[in-house]
Structure formats: C-alpha cells, structure tokens
C-alpha cells in the first residue's frame, strides 16, 4: 500500500475537484433553462457532492492516523483549507459562463471520471475501489445527459453552435491537466497503485472525438499549451472567490452547525 501522506493528498485531489465543481454547478439551482434541466444539473451536483464526501471521509481518517489526533473531519477538510491547500483541477474552478460552458465543463470532467473510476474500481485499496465502483454507476447517467446536450447545442441552431464553439475555446486549455500527473500521482503510478494517466487520456479523447463528430464540432488543436498547477495548489484567481463564498459561514462562525 502507498505512503499514507501520498494517498491522503491524492484523495484530496479527487475530493476537491468534485466539491468545487459541485459548488459551481449548485449556483444553477433555480436558474436552469427549464425545470427538468434545472433538476438534472442539481442532481448531478448532489452526486458529485456525495462522491466528494466519501473521499473526504476517507482522507480525514488518514489525516487523523498520520497526526495521531482526531481533529480532521470531512467538514474541516472542506471548510478550513485555503486555496493553496486545495488540489482541484483548474477545469472545475472555471466559471459557469452560459449553459454551453457549464455543459462542456461537465462533459469533459464526466468522461474523465468515468475512465478514472473504472480503473480505480479495480484498485487494491478496497475502500477506494468501493467508492469508485459506486460513483461509476452515477457517472454513467451524467455522461448520457451531457452527451445529449453537446449534441443538441453543437448541432442545434446557429446561436447554440456559436456558444458551444466559444465555450470550447475557453475551456479546452484546462483539459490537459487531468492527464498531467502531479508529483503524488507520479509516485502512485510508478508503484502501480494508480493507472497510467496517458491510457486514460487516450480513452477520454476517443469518447470526446466521437461525441464531437456526432455534434458537428471540431476537435481542438491538441498541441496548444495546457494550463496546469491546480493539483499542486496553484490556482487561477477564481478559486479564492469560490472558497470565500463556500467557507463564509465556517470562517465567520467557526464550528457552527445546524
């Protein structure tokens, strides 16, 4: 089994990405284009939040084992860390933009999770494998929903297509980071604990290419510079604002409960 501290960092990477995306998606609640789609995006958000909680609970137990204290909880990990301690993908902290941008961001992340969780569900770490296998069942519904929307917008009206192309331009440079291993991921890949991310990248691209082809959308230039740093705590300016809102209550009234 891997070093506890490395595994802890890796679990935070997984948890933080899903939590931050859930926090972003959650602001659609009550603002979705029609009721059914409002419900759909918030349901997906709840799934992401639940998956993040499972990883945080595991990470909190490891943190307590490492420190010999009992202070870490899922809530302390979510509410008491600042942006340099957050390890989420930059993709997840990108703004909601319009519906096209929200959908595209969700689609890229969903396809990535589908491939990653499929690999992790075979992990030697039974707890990680259990969470991944459970999450995978939920992700499959997200994928169908996102793909249908990529289709509808990409191959829809002139307006919807132009918005999808604009979203693609905005979001694409943040996709490469998913497959660029952090120092912790490198260690875990070398020891065989994690799958090779380039294999996941290949599968991810196949699915994205297929859905884009159906939607008459161009597959972007793969050679452009990809933004990175989120996994190591180096974020865009956007994360600070997200955390300021998400952590407001716990920062102002520490340990408040309701």
């Amino acid at each position, binding site marked *: 089994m891997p070093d506890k501290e490395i595994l802890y960092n890796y679990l935070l990477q997984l948890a933080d990405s899903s939590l931050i995306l859930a926090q972003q998606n959650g602001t659609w609640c009550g603002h979705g284009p029609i009721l*059914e789609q409002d*419900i*759909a995006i918030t349901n997906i958000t*709840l799934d992401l939040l639940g*998956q993040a909680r499972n990883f945080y609970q595991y990470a909190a137990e490891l943190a307590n084992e490492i420190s010999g204290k009992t202070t870490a909880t899922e809530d302390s990990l979510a509410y008491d860390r600042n942006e340099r301690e957050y390890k989420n993908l930059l993709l997840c902290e990108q703004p909601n933009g319009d519906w096209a941008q929200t959908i595209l961001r969700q689609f890229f992340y969903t396809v990535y999770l589908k491939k990653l969780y499929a690999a992790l569900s075979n992990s030697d770490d039974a707890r990680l*494998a259990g969470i991944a296998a*459970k999450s995978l069942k939920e992700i499959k*519904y997200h994928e169908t*929903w996102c793909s249908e929307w990529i289709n509808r917008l990409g191959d829809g009206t002139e307006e919807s297509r132009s918005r999808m192309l604009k979203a693609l331009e905005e979001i694409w440079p943040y996709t490469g980071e998913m497959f660029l291993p952090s120092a912790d991921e490198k260690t875990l890949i070398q020891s065989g604990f994690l799958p090779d991310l380039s294999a996941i990248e290949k599968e991810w691209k196949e699915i994205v290419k297929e859905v884009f082809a159906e939607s008459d959308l161009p597959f972007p230039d793969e050679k452009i510079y990809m933004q990175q740093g989120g996994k190591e705590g180096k974020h865009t300016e956007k994360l600070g604002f997200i955390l300021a809102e998400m952590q407001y209550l716990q920062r102002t009234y520490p340990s408040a409960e309701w």
Partner: protein
Amino acid sequence: MNHTTSIQSAQLISKLWELLEGIPDPEIPVLSILDLGIVRNVEVDENGHITVSITPTYSGCPAMDMITINIKLSMSAAGYKDYSIKQVLSPAWTTDWMTESGKIKLEKYGIAPPNPNDELPACPQCKSPNTKLLSQFGSTACKSLYQCEDCREPFDYFKCH
C-alpha cells in the same frame, strides 16, 4: 457462545429485523428500508453489542442521513442502547436488492419499478407500455421522469442502479 445465548441472539436478531421493517424511506414512504435493500446485515456480538450495516443508495442522496437518524430513533425508542450503525460501501447498492413486494408497492404508489432489461417502463396508472422519457433526472436522485403516451399521465420511474 453457549446454546442458550445463541438462541437468544437469534431471537433478538429477528426482532431487530422486524423493527427495521417498520422504518419507511423518507422520500418514498410506501417502501421500508428493507424493501429498498439498504440494510445489509444485523449482528449481535458476544457482549450483546448490536451492529446494523447499511449501504447507501446514491452517494449524494440526502435521505441517507435521515435514514441513519431514523434507525437510531427506532432503536432507542425500542429500548436498545448498545448499538452502532455501520456504513458499507462495497459491494455498491443496486436496485436488484429491492424486494419483489417493494416493487409491487412502488407501482401501486404510482412509481414504475426498476426494470433490469432497461426497456421503457409501463405506465403505473393505465399499464400501457407506450411511454416516453421526459427527463433522465427526476424529483429525487433515484428517479427519472416519463410520460404515458396513452393516458398522458407523467410518472416517475425508479432507475436501475
């Protein structure tokens, strides 16, 4: 464990299952948590400590916290003191664990039960197989929204999971 205590604990366990049968799902009160297959195991160790193992349905289902609280309330109300509730994630919960009687109750309640063949669900009102999907995501994480093309009634379908 001697013979007498093993009989006693078997009786206790069957009493506990009866108690759990009486706890409804907070979102779909027509189903008990046993109908849903949430309770995986009830054990009593040699010191009399009771462990109830439950498997969450959906990762983000807000009803799961409520279910845990309701189990604690029922256990305490029935006078049990030395117990714990254990969450088991693996194997992941599946709608295959829903009981047959649970599926019948669901349909009578107006929710089409999960259909493992992934065919279009029949309308729980008029039984017509002629239905269409309105939205993959419905009023709760576990349901999607359909409409009957014959009686025109919209209805929830409990998704396969």
